[in-house]
Every structure is written in C-alpha cells, then in structure tokens.
C-alpha cells in the first residue's frame, strides 16, 4: 500500500513546479502545496533532531520546566537559594531535549520557544492554530540561548561526522538544514565567513577569558555554531514546502 502510494505519479510530483510558480505566484489556484511555517513543537523538535541531540525516548513522566532569571521558561530544573528564588536553571539532563510533547504544560508559564512560535493556548480549547510572523520570533532566532545551544550542538555533530574536513562539514550542514548542497559560491563564502568568525571569536576569548573551571573556548566550533544558527533560522528550514 505504502509502496503503491509513494510510487504514484501524484506523490512524486514536485510541489514547486516552475510553470505553476510563474503562472500563479500566489497559488490562488492551489496548483501546488501551500508553503507553511512549522508549528511551534515542530520548530523546536526539528532543531533538536537536526543538531543530533533529540532524545527519542517515549512515554514516562513529563520533562519539568523552569523559569530562568532572564524571564525564559525552559526545560530544566529550577535551582533555588534559601529564599526560594531561582538562582539558575539546571538543563544538563538529556531529558531536556525530549520531544516537545513530553514537556510539562503549565497554564501560567508556557515554554518560551513554543510560546514564541504560536503554541495554542489550550484553556479552554483551540479550534485552529495561528501562525504569526512577528519581531519577537526574529529576536528569538537571533539571540535566544536555546537556539545558540542547539546550533553549537549541530556544529559538534558536523565535526563528529566529517572530522577534519571543513568543506565536507559545510556541505553536511547544508544537507541537514537546507535539503541541498551549497552552490560553489555559497560554499566558498561560507568557509570564508567561518574563518573570519573564528578570528572574531578568538579575539573575544582573549579579551574575555572564561572562568578558571570553565572549559577552554573552542572558537572554531563556536564560529561554526554561529553559522549553523543562521542555517537553522532560515526560511527554508522553518517552512514546509
């Protein structure tokens, strides 16, 4: 049955046919799939999966959520001081990277990454999901610690899978996030920016040496992470075509 379906002419049609796009750019006549942004949960889960850190474990207790000092609500455990104030959030347990469906839902504190991308408010119910495009989403993708952390994990994955070969790492990054290989110009530009970014971050690390007990900074990895972040924030990654 599946075989028959996936072998069918309809299934194998490309959705973005140049003719269809030229004749009906706004897709008024529904000649192709309507591009749509991933839902909140899919945004988070896809990022984790692409970075290779999604915990696929099923069932069991939900992952606890915590409020950080900066006002984020994230997966993790609140670390409290004697006054009961949150001093930091412990997000070292692998469970924080489980699928969004396993995150605890608290009516008063929706998880920031999901809330930012239109997680429906379920009290009393949700009839239809909205998909907004607002500046806080841009700020989130630019600056949120979740995106920065996941992007660095993706950089680690690239290094693990294509050790010692920058060009291969760049290609793999494109494959994973864009579903295609980079063009020659794109690839060269990516590698050049990576070097430049590495230099910048190295200078930063010299000016702002990390604490004694912190791991030594890996500017090359951080730089690759910063570029992976742009790839993950791209429209091609965030939209279903």
């Amino acid at each position, binding site marked *: 049955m599946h075989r028959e379906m996936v072998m069918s002419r309809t299934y194998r049609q490309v959705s973005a046919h140049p003719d269809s796009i030229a004749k009906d750019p706004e*897709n008024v006549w529904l000649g192709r799939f309507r591009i749509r942004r991933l839902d909140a949960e899919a945004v988070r889960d896809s990022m984790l999966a692409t970075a290779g850190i999604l915990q696929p474990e099923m069932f069991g207790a939900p992952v606890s959520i915590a409020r950080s000092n900066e006002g984020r609500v994230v997966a993790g455990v609140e670390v409290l001081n004697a006054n009961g104030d949150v001093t930091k959030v412990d997000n070292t347990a692998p469970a924080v990277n489980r699928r969004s469906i396993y995150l605890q839902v608290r009516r008063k504190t929706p998880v920031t990454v999901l809330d930012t991308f239109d997680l429906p408010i379920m009290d009393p119910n949700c009839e239809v999901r909205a998909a907004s495009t607002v500046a806080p989403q841009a700020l989130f993708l630019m600056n949120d610690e979740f995106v920065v952390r996941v992007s660095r994990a993706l950089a680690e994955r690239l290094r693990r899978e294509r050790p010692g070969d920058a060009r291969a790492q760049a290609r793999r990054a494109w494959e994973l996030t864009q579903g295609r290989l980079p063009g020659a110009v794109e690839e060269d530009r990516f590698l050049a920016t990576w070097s430049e970014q590495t230099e910048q971050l190295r200078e930063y690390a010299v000016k702002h040496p990390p604490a004694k007990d912190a791991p030594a900074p890996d500017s090359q990895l951080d730089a690759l992470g910063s570029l992976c972040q*742009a790839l993950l924030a791209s429209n091609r990654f965030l939209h279903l075509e």
Partner: protein
Amino acid sequence: MSNPHSQLCSRRHFLQSSGFGLGGLAFASLLREEGLLAAPVKPLLGGEGFDLKPKVPSATGKARAMISLFMMGGPSQMDLFDPKPELNKRHGEKFPGQVVYDNVAQASPKIFGCPWTFAKSGQCGMELSEWLPSLQQVADDITLIRSMKSGVSNHLQGMLAMLTGRGTVGRPTVGSWISYALGSETRDLPAFVVLAHPSGLPTFQHQHWTNGWLPSTYQGTLVQAKYPYILNLDAPAQFAGKPQQRQMELLDALNQQHAAQYPGEHDLRARIASYELAGRMQVAAKEALDIESEPEHVQKLYGLDHPVSADYGRRCLIARRLVERGVRFVQVLNNGQSWDHHGSIIKALPERCAETDRGSAALVMDLKQRGLLDSTVVHWGGEMGRLPVLQNDGAREKWGRDHNTYGFSQWVAGGGFKGGCVYGETDEWGHHAVKDVVNHYDWHATLLHSFGFDHEKLGFIRNGGNRTLTDGQGARIVHEILA
C-alpha cells in the same frame, strides 16, 4: 450550524476593502512601504494572517491609546474613594445586613469605619482620601466610578472579568482587543506593552496580558523592570557586533534566495522584514525605556526623587514615553496582589498609596500638558473592592477587610471620559453598588465606545460565532461619563 468560512469571508472582504487584508502578513505596512507587495488575493484556507497596521475604527472615538494602571489585590473603596459617614458613625457595631465572606474563618460581623479623612478636591469637590494628595490635584480631570460591580470573587476570576469580560480563563485581555481593533501606530515597538514590577512576574503571570484565542500578534510584550528588559533583545555577548552581523548576512542571503524561488509567498518576505523590525526594535525599545533623558522636573513630577514612589513612577513615565511613540496599550502592574488587605490595612494602605499616588496622578498631569490626554485613556483600578466589616477582629494593627465584588471604585481619565465627574453610588455601607451600577462588561462597552468601536460588533470569529469582549452579557454604554 453556520459555516464559519462564510463569516470569515465577509470579515476578509472588509479587511481587503480597507486595504490591509494581506494574507499571512504581520507587518504588511512595512512591506508596502518597501514596495514588496501587490494586493494578493488568496482563497481562505485557515491560518489567516493578521497584522498590526493602524486601522480606522467604525465610529468616531476620541481614544487612541490606553494606559491601564491595574491595582491587583482589590483597593479598599471606602478608605480611598467612597466615603461613608454612616459606616464611620457605627464603627464596631454589628453589621445589619448580609455579607458574603471569602475568608470565613477570620470573618467578623463588626462594622469597620474608615480610620482616615477625605478631602473635597478640585472645583468639582470630589471627595478623595487624605492618602491620595496627588490625585486630589487632578480631580477635575478624572471620572470616579463608585458603582463598579463584577460579582466574581477571588483574584484570578475577578481580574479575568475586569480584563477579559468573563471570569474564566482563555479569553483575550482588553489590551489584546484594542491592539487587534486598532493595530499599532509604531513600526518599531510592540502594540501592547506590559510593564512588570521589579519583583518579577505578577501572581497570575501571562493571564494579565494574554491574547486568549486572538492571534498571538496581539499578545502583550513583557518589559521587565530589570535588565535585559525585553527577552532576547540583545545578542549573546560573544556574538554582539560583527559576528552577529555576519550571521545576519548569511541568513539574509539564504532567505533572499529562497524567497526568489517563491515570488508570490508573502509570508517569506514578512519574515525577512521581521528581522529588520527586530533590528529597529533593539534601538527603539532601548530609547523608549531610557528615562534618564527626561528633564529633572518631569522625573520629580513622577516621584522619581523619592525611593518609595520611584519604582512605580518610573513605570508610569515609561508608559507615557511608549504611548508618545505610538504604542497602543500599556499595562502597568503592581507588586503581586499588594492591595489585598485582609489584615494590617491601617499600615499597608497608606504605604500602597505612597508608592502609586504620585506616578498615577503625574501621568494625568503630564499627558494633559502634552496634549495627549484627549486621546489617551488612563485607568486606575483593581479586580475588586473590600467589605465594610472587619477581618481579623483582634489587635487594631491587624485589622483588615475581606473581598467585595458587589461594589467598588475605579477612576478613569482622558480619551473622551469626563473630568470632575463622580458616577454611581454604593449603599450607605459601601457594600453593594445600588445606583447607576457599572458592571465590568458595561465598563468594557463604554471603553470600546470611547475608542470608536461597537462592543457587539468588534469580534473575532471562533467556533462559528462572532466572539466579543462583552460576550452577550447585555452590556450598556455608560454615556453619562463620556464628555
């Protein structure tokens, strides 16, 4: 059952004929200005786009913006706004009527007279508590409603009734409604801003600024009192400056290439534009929140020269700066439920007044002086009032008052509301609103009217019906308090 799509279509037609029904665009205005848009026509398939482009109300209303000074906890009306000589005369006697208590264990049937004095204020002679000396100075600019009623006890439910029209969770707040109805006058700041107390999020957190089932574009943006003020406004330290610029260049190249492949997909261009907006917001938000640039006499007017009133005054001043820059709705929050005086009211109430009186009144004076009061509604009020009888009948310093949702006071200024006006009455005890009762939904209907909207028409299609703020509760517009 009616077909929701037919209703959606008519709303869509309205939006299109008004020139901003552009599917999928949160920042249509921005794109139009940058020449990216023709007028697209798409079949309706769900996931409609909503935007913050300035909109024209259906009727003429004077109000264009609102600052809500929400006083969570339930300020005591008979101690602040609604003097009751009979109550004072019979202090300590047994209350002759029936009382519904929230806290039965600490309840007492003894009458609790107001321990303070009132002063006739302004030319109108409005009687206001001795603890509100600054408000007394603007009495001629405010309407005092003494007959508020919600009948919804408990803080969350009462707050929801006052902010969303009903005491149940899940509905949009007034700020979201007004942002939805009117859009935003600014391209660089959110339409709906929430200014939190330094202690952190309020008791009921995002319920204070929830968009409910309205699109999340109309959710309030939380501005915290401490750095980083707005979440994710700044780049992580190591990426600030050039590294982030390089990231954005790569991102922009990817997005432009992708968008070129789909020339008719406006959502993709809207997201590209949202990065530009984010960049402008980084600058505009910081500028708006920077009150150091305000002259000293203005800072002083708001009480910034005194540690007790400085925090609240600072947020009132920021609220004015935001409205001045085109923000549609500003919600200023107090500390938790700091007006919830079940006990120790004799000490606590003057403290709360000292914190909030100067900033609140300064807002009215300052907006008036700048010619903004005519178009800006300033609202001061909580989710309930308090009872005429004692709670904690023991030592005097422990005395308090329990919840009362059947009669309480709030004041409102500007935006077409009368000045020097006292409206409605409670009974001789200040317990029940008895004359010219203003239910929470009457207040909402009047408020929307002041913005030029019909509360029965301004709605959102959901579950096949047009859902409104007043939700078919038979609300009346209180024309008597409108100039």
